[in-house]
């Protein structure tokens, strides 16, 4: 299992309702991801909501693309990353 950052662009801005709808939306995404062994850790969203940087644990980049297609999410770029902890040496 590797960790990936996935960059996505939403030209019209990402809309996720804050109420129940949003929770349901996210749960649906999480469930569909699970079928391919993909875990969505968290996402960072740009202020204008047009770009997101999503952190995932996944077996392969193909699994990330497969789940993105199922969730109807765009993919710009997938980067495999490791953690650099600034306080590791403290």
């Amino acid at each position, binding site marked *: 299992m590797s960790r*990936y950052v996935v960059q996505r662009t939403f030209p019209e801005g990402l809309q996720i309702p804050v109420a129940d709808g949003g929770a349901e939306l996210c749960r649906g995404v999480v469930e569909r991801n699970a079928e391919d062994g993909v875990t969505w850790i968290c996402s960072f969203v740009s202020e204008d909501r047009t770009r997101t940087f999503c952190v995932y644990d996944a077996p392969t980049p193909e699994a990330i*693309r497969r789940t993105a297609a199922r969730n*109807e999410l765009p993919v*710009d770029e997938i980067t495999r990353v490791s953690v650099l902890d600034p306080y590791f040496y403290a």
Partner: protein
Amino acid sequence: MSFDVPDPSDALLERDESMLVLDELLTRVRSTSVGQLVLVRGEAGVGKTALIRRFCEAQRDRVRILWGGCQPVRTPRPLGPLIDIAEATGGELEQLVGLAATPHAVATQLLRELRSRGPSVLVLEDLHWADEATLDVLIVLAARIDSAPALVLASYRDDELDRAEQLRLVLGDLVSRPRRLKVESLSETAVVELAQSYGVDGHELHRRTAGNPFFVSEVLAAGGAEIPETVRDAVLARAARLPGRARRLLDVAAVVPGQIDMWLLEALAGELVDELEECLASGMLSARATHVAFRHELARLAIEEAIAPNRRIVLQRRALGVLVDRGGEDPDLARLAYHAEAAGDVQSVLRWAPLAGEHAASSGAHREAAAQYARAVRFADGLSLQGRAELLQRRADECYTTDQFAAAIEAQEAALDLQRSLGSTLGEGDALRSLSRLLRFVGRTSDAQAAAVEAVGMLERLPPGHELAIAYGNLSHLCMNREDAGGARAWGTRALELAERLDDDEALVYALTNIGVVDFLAGAAEGTVELERALTLAQRHGFEEHAGRSFVSLVLWPLRHRMFAVADRYLVAGLEYCSERGLDTWRLYLIACRARLELDLGRWSEAADSASLVLRDPRSAPVPRGWALAVLGLVRARRGDPGASDPLDAARTLVQSTGELQCIAPVAAARAEAAWLRGEDAIVDEETESALELALHRRSAWVVSELAYWRWRAGMSDAHLPGVAATPYGLSLTGEWARAAELWTQIGCPYEAALALADGDDQPALRQAIDDLHGLGARPAAAIVARRLRERGVRGLPRGPRPQTRHNPAGLTARELEVLACLTEGLRNAQIAQRLVVSEKTVDHHVSAVLRKLDVRSRGEAGAAALRLGLTQHAGEPEAKRSLGFEPSLENESRRQRA
């Protein structure tokens, strides 16, 4: 006789939702008569069977229930669950199953049976134990279930998929998307509720059992305040509460895996059978009409493992004796072999295991056959040298058929040693020839050649016979794989002459295939005709292994020449043929070829899926593995995804020693392209040099031009290379980029077409190339082309797909959206061309792109997808429903359903 006794665990908690889902699915099946496959999965003891049984009981009056369970033994009887089902249906299905028919025939008859009656629920239980033939039935059933009014519930343990390798592969490759139902463990609330009336700490019980219903119920039934550490302890604690004689009956029952027929239990237990009521009342055993069974296989295992070894052997011997005495015209050979081994009865193992192996092989369950022969070999020390050699040979052959090459070579070498000790020239020569074939498969080409030559030398000392003809064929085969046309023809002709003299059809087919390949590669006018003839002959005479290889030849070599329609046709037919007959080795070759076909056609997601399927089995043969690794590496490199070099490095290591162009070339080309995409032009020379030399030596115009093309892209200019001009790569090399792009488009390769366009000297061509590359998701190549444009002073290039394509998830360009709108109106290409004032060929190009981006196969579907995605306002059902691409087929049909 029915002893159904309620048990505390019979209360089904937290299953309402699952029951509701099943109810809804069945209602839909009943109202539409369209069948549905449901995969019911969950860990051992989680209650899959309990759920399905409860559901079936509730539906019993409304629909027909057919139930088939797999047996918990390592090498089960082929088609075990189908035998159960056939007993219930009777009629033609029962006759067919009795005749050891192929899985395909059984599945077809089963579907016919399901169609002939009202709606049914068909249960296939515990598929993690399924034999290969049963899994083949499942594949066919899954592909065609929508034609029968049946709800098929297939259950398996998802925590044991590592061990059930075949099931894992089958599930990964099911053509239709089945519904999945996961049976979850119990929540803490549920466990606490259950524990309440037993005075057990429910929270602790939940922690210890992780909510596994079987574990929970065993603990509760065992009573006592202590919570046992493991399921096994819980089962034994529960069993310990039985009186002595009843406890002994439990031991007797535990030596028979799965269900125990009443007559068998009576014969085994003698007077102890009186204690059955006690065992049933305690809930340890449950009874149906004609048999009893442990409440769960976990319980049986716990009891069986606790029996003292000497007593276990006594009980197993008794079981074997009873089963042998019972005999019957159609004994369960796998069961006899199982008890023979468990009883440690050497003579019986040697009697039943080979018979079980033969039976399994004839039903297409070659993996079970291989395992039965392995079982016999383990007990064969006292057998004659000849007898052992024969068993080992059969083991080697079955392992070869099922892509288990390490095991095959081990058995083959042992058989060869025995033949040497026997001093049999014929036996040794033939074993050497077999070994040669195996060694070639694992990439040990020079060892294979040496063994092949030695085999021919030995067999030529004897009067010419079948073995010699096959040995000539083997040498021809080795030459053919090296693309040594002269050698392949010379040895092939010898084989052919001898085969005709001996009237030996197998040797004839073998030689014809080898010669057919080299003639095809040499550009013979008749193309694939010779190969097709070999295939027909092989099928007519039932030489399944040779037929499988002919199918591979008819896919692999046309693929190199980019003859996709031919490759596609034989790919579909070949996959069906090999799947049905358990020819795993050739099936894997074909899937690797499918990955390449999909890559070339721009269907990268599917290509990566197919490649992963080949790679998922860690033991798969090096040749298809190398191809699959190259495809996976290329998909990643072309998308700019991470992890491209891992598969490409592994591929190089794998193919290096083969010396075969068919292995080396695709890997070299893939590595060169990936280097170019990374901007490391400097290493392309090194990556391609030796492959190019080999390709020139073998006069393979397509390979030479492809490698030369990547070298040219990386800035090298090779001297004039022979034959190159005939391919679109060659056109690019000579600056004819427009014709190259046109040719690639005609052939059906969008990525290659876009790259060719990128060599254009006018801006529109380059801009089109960037658009097309973005459409394919080829980010790195698009960036290279964009850089080229910027170097020419062009500004304002999009860095990603153009904004307007981002408004639609499929990434269609403006022109493609226009074409799509026309498609939804049902216009034909000529009409679209007229309306948009472009050529018909251009429309064809756009239509292909639209279908690919929407991941659909027909114009009708494109319209539907457009409406779903809100891509067009034009509604209305299109009239034209022409399938685009290659011949419509079951495979394409089902791929579409999967999409």
